[in-house]
């Protein structure tokens, strides 16, 4: 706006904090430098209170025998060192074997959900890149799953997946005659498929949104030049679109990976507190250990182990992608 006062330190004017100050008043300098810290203080306090301190408390809990006997005065629970880690990470115990199974399920789930969501989101964004009649409606429609409350959306899926009364089996068996017998979706082997379908349904609109935003930043000149060189759709996609989307995709895939690996809402609403073994994601597994079998020490140990795993994977991913960027 024309009436806005120019910001201090911008290119449009001299920085008044230094150039405008009369000589002989240097004491004002340290006071002004406090401002950024003061402005940051609320964020730091909240970050400490919401993330850092609970994380440290969780790490401490993982070293305690924290059951219902001590939950009220948890700081007085017996210190057991790394015993909880030994139990939950030893695949020869029932707890360790179950955690390993849950970990495997979660890895496969994450890879498939993130991969397919990204493919769907990217495909839809590329197809909707050029203007056409009805594009705005389609965009809004595609984003609907992302806008719906998680609980409402997933509970609706549980109705759809009911064996006898669900719409999924009605379509597959009664309308399309693809199957003779209605299968189960919420128990047994198919529960993983059901979980994956709901996850992708929830996740791909976010990928679509991010990729669509990334596509806006690709200058038309690149496509025009490629067209002049005779590049077709696939060549333009491979040589212009995907390379230009790389910065967006690097962040997008990392975020989707972390969200999906820690996904709790989808399996919890879909299956209740005890998911079938085939769809027992690690977050739900930890919840069950902590809150249903009253073993908060083991639950915390699993959480810390999961955190370390995610930190290592994230660090590796960032290192790898940075190195490639530097090499490029």
């Amino acid at each position, binding site marked *: 706006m024309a009436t806005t006062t120019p910001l201090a330190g911008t290119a449009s004017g001299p920085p008044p904090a230094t150039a405008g100050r009369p000589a002989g008043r240097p004491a004002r300098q340290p*006071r002004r430098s406090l401002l950024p810290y003061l402005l940051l203080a609320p964020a730091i306090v909240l970050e400490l209170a919401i993330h850092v301190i609970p994380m440290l408390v969780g790490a401490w809990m993982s070293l305690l025998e924290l059951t219902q006997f001590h939950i009220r005065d948890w700081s007085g629970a017996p210190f057991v060192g790394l015993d909880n880690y030994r139990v939950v990470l030893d695949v020869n115990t029932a707890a360790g074997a179950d955690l390993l199974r849950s970990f495997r399920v979660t890895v496969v789930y994450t890879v498939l959900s993130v991969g397919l969501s990204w493919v769907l989101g990217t495909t839809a964004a590329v197809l909707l890149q050029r203007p056409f009649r009805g594009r705005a409606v389609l965009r809004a429609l595609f984003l609907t799953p992302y806008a719906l409350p998680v609980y409402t959306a997933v509970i609706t899926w549980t109705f759809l997946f009911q*064996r006898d009364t669900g719409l999924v089996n009605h379509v597959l068996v009664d309308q399309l005659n693809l199957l003779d017998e209605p299968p189960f979706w*919420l*128990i*047994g082997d198919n529960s993983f498929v059901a979980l994956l379908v709901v996850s992708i349904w929830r996740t791909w609109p976010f990928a679509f949104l991010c990729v669509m935003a990334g596509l806006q930043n690709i200058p038309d000149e690149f496509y025009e030049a490629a067209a002049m060189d005779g590049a077709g759709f696939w060549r333009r996609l491979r040589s212009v679109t995907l390379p230009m989307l790389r910065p967006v995709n690097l962040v997008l895939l990392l975020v989707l990976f972390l969200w999906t690996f820690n996904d709790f809402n989808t399996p919890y609403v879909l299956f209740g507190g005890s998911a079938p073994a085939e769809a027992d994601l690690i977050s739900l597994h930890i919840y069950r250990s902590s809150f249903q079998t009253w073993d908060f020490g083991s639950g915390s140990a699993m959480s810390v182990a999961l955190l370390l795993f995610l930190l290592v994977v994230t660090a590796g991913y960032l290192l790898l992608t940075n190195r490639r960027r530097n090499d490029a």
Partner: protein
Amino acid sequence: MSRRHLAILTATVLAAASLIACGAGDESGEGGKTLTYWASNQGASLEADKEILQPELDKFEQQTGIKVNVEVVPWSDLLNRLLAAATTGQGPDVVNIGNTWSASLQATGALVEFDDATLDKVGGKDRFVPAALAAAGAADKPPAAVPLYSLAYALYYNKRAFADAGITAPPTTWEEMAEVGRKLTGDGKWGLAVEGANPSENAHHAFTFGQQYGGDWFDSAGQPTFDTPQNVAAVKRFIDLMAVDKIVNPSNAEYAQNQSVSDFANGKAAMLLWQAAGANLKSQGMAPDGYGVAPVPFPANPPAGGKQVNSMVAGINMAVFKHTGNLDGALEFVRFMTSDAEQVTLNKTYGSLPAVGTVAADPAFAAEEQKVLAQTLATSAAPLPQVPEESTFETLVGTAIKELFADAASGRPVTEDSVREKLTRAQQQMR
């Protein structure tokens, strides 16, 4: 510091303070004249429960001047909410708990123990039905709660379906149950409905079947004994109703939200094993004369050690948190809710039985359903093991049975070995 900086700092401190205050939870405020009460979901819905309870709470306020703020908590959330309140020392003053959780919650040390002196404040120990009071805490300690509503499992059967099939009496043994069930199964209808994906429900049946087959889930030292041959046989008998006898719709393996009650009310299933289902059935349009109620069946030839147990001692207890700022008011409220008048009013509405002996003869409990439940509680019900690990038992064994039902529904064989393997695995997870 400039005024602007001071304003920023003040705003920061206020924001942090308000956040901390947000976490402080409820207090019994207004000079101890207010209580917070978490009621369990007993009726057709949370809203229905609130409508049932509110007039009684108003009555209590008129009598004592103490206002009770009630929140009806669904069963799926209740244990976690109680645990959070126990951990933080913040939360309601008075709560409902499932009686099977009594010893587990008692072990947290967060509940007021009802020793003789405290029991005297709520009317005295002798008022309460002994079996119900026995299911209110560990055997060697004073109860951690007092019973509020008493319940027992019974066999509900559809009179018309039985008549149409030429069946004149409800089954008394599992063998008869299978035979009768087969006659009632067909044309999209099934002999029996079960809640196969509900761990608590499964664990309750595991206990009763276990008793009938001579099994216990914990030994005298409180150690788990999940995979004994008796318990394996008992669980297999239960699963076989679907896997072998084929009188249970395989779809029941995914039931966890009382769909089995709906199936019975809608005529899709002719029998149901449930506790005080009458009020729920009525809300779904099934009149009381449409169904009969009989004791839960028993093996025709019980193995050595088998006990004539037809039900667990089921029920809802009322507990007081130690952190209450108004202990006298909370105990006064417990006394009110367990008074003769309230016991008749509330149990009549919910179709449950009174937890006090003084009103057992009231005509409100003379219906066929209540008579069978009362008889069961008096003669052939046993309390679930009152050990601190009880809630863990429900989760682990109930989940193992859920998986076995899933196997049976999917056509996978359920053998003694597969049952034993699941129960052993559940036992290994007890720490």
